[in-house]
């Protein structure tokens, strides 16, 4: 399955979750398929989508929280997997789109061809971990994990496929902050 196909499967499954996106093509793919106020697009600070998602999840236990991460981000901040496992938020699903490459900078190889990230997450102490390799497994895996207590980890193995003409996120960083916070607390000005 191509990376884009994974996004086309996941995005329609989202409802009212807070969704933290890792930098690079993950932000861009998701933004261009469907922009949502509850999407936090992390355009810089590589490696921190997981800790931002953890901060949201533990601060708002009533709010389902999804991190859409990449293999390069997870490898950069592997220690955050331990923080997530230790804090153990039930409301957190950590999805990793694993193309085994730094695709937005020219597809340099990462290390996830030889390091099984779902096993790292399992060893760290995530309650649920799953690896899928085909498009038709995604919906079931997503729904199964969303129906169980987390923290959960869903590794989606994909082939690099990013189309460089895919546009960047068009909101300013400040706008992303404002709309995301509003989506978490819609009654507050």
């Amino acid at each position: 399955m191509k990376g884009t196909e994974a996004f086309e499967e996941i995005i329609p499954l989202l409802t009212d979750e807070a969704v933290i996106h890792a930098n690079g093509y993950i932000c861009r793919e998701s933004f261009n398929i469907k922009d949502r106020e509850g999407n936090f697009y992390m355009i810089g600070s590589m490696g921190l989508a997981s800790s931002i998602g953890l901060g949201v999840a533990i601060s708002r236990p009533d709010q389902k929280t999804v991190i859409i991460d990449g293999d390069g981000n997870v490898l950069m901040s592997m220690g955050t997997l331990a923080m997530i496992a230790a804090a153990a938020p039930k409301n957190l699903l950590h999805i990793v789109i694993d193309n085994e490459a730094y695709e937005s900078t020219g597809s340099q190889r990462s290390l996830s061809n030889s390091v099984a990230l779902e096993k790292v997450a399992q060893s760290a102490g995530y309650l649920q971990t799953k690896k899928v390799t085909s498009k038709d497994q995604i919906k079931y895996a997503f729904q199964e994990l969303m129906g169980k207590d987390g923290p959960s980890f869903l590794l989606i193995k994909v082939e690099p496929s990013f189309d460089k003409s895919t546009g960047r996120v068009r909101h300013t960083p400040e706008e992303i902050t404002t709309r995301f916070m509003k989506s978490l607390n819609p009654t507050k000005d």
Partner: protein
Amino acid sequence: MLSSKVFSELLSSKGFNFYTGVPCSLLSGLIRIIDDDPETPYFPAVREDAAVGLCAGAYLAGKLPVLLMQNSGLGYCLNAFTSLNLIYKIPVLVVMSWRGEDGSDAPEHIIMGEINQKLLQTSSMEYSVLSSDNYEASLNTALQKIKEGLPYTLLVGKGHFNEGH
């Protein structure tokens, strides 16, 4: 000397309600008091930049976060401060211990002790050097900056807080 207990109570009274960090001996008393009190949840972080991310998420979800760390972690945080906090207007209060303040600390602290203020200034990260005379005023300045969406650092030298070990 400033009491860690007084300072932690002051943080709570100002509305700070989420704590994380990577320990420093200079902050050991403060961290122990915060971690022991269920009213002030403390989440140990593996590295200072992960703590910046955690605080950012907490802020987005309505908390007022505090990051406790040693100045040795400042380098790890610079990308997070410049490409997350400053451009997204995501504030955080950083309580940063100042190892190597007078140049007489252990060798690993000397260079960072000399340059940490310059690094903060270069990065447009506003800060105060905390003392027992100015801590309330500094915290009020910090709160003002936080309301404006800016991160703010309180640099704390050796001996300002009573240590807890």
